[in-house]
């Protein structure tokens, strides 16, 4: 799989304890095989984004719901198209459209065992 997520090393774990990373639990199968239901990941909220990154974002239509998706495309007007790695089981920018950068909360840096 392209852009496979690394396992969390000691550096990422220290950054978590220093408050530089946020922990998030994955719910659902839309990011298979990269992430499965129940996986835990760490998020860097200060990171920049590029195509291929897995990111945490606000759901555009559901208040207080956060989603984990991969950036498929960044348009010239800085809108981000998000897709699930498992397209058959994903509601993403194909249905809710591209979302602005302000709705992207952080980049997934690694997966926790």
């Amino acid at each position: 799989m392209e852009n496979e997520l690394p396992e969390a090393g000691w550096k990422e774990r220290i950054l978590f304890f220093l408050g530089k990373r946020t922990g998030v639990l994955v719910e659902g199968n839309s990011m298979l095989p990269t992430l499965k239901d129940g996986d835990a990941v760490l998020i860097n909220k200060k990171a920049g984004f590029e195509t291929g990154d897995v990111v945490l974002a606000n759901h555009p239509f559901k208040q207080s719901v956060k989603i984990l998706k991969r950036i498929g495309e960044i348009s010239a007007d800085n809108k981000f198209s998000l897709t699930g790695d498992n397209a058959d089981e994903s509601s993403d920018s194909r249905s809710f459209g591209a979302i602005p950068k302000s709705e992207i909360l952080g980049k997934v840096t690694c997966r926790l065992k």
Partner: protein
Amino acid sequence: MFDRLDKMNFETAEAHCDGPCGVYDPAQARIEAESVFMLTKKILDLKRPEGDDAKAHAAYQNTLTRFIAIKEERAELAKHHVLVLWTDYFKPEHLEKYPDLHTLFWKTAKLCSSCKQEVSREHAQELLDNIKKIHEMFWATKNKDVEWYLASQ
């Protein structure tokens, strides 16, 4: 100490689809639209009792009220199922193949509202006709030949 992180305090992020994963069928909208059509017909055909028989009038009011209440409910359900297909199932690549997709769904959703507000056999029939078009479009995207039928006939 860094080996084990307490995941209990982690927030949850969704990585799934909004609907029952991948399971869609316009039959749900068709069944509700059929109910709307049949109830509209029943309301129009219902005979007001003659004379002053209180019991007969009560029975008439009760039946009419029930028909109206169920028609309202079913028209709303039909709209819900139409909107789920429109917003969750159909994707931009389908729009390329069916350029009138948005117009069809928009008009169908509006027909659901009309059927809820009015007692119009014409609009109820038009709603069924539109859902038939959605049925044909939907199954064509899956390369399946699924016959259109009405449960009430």
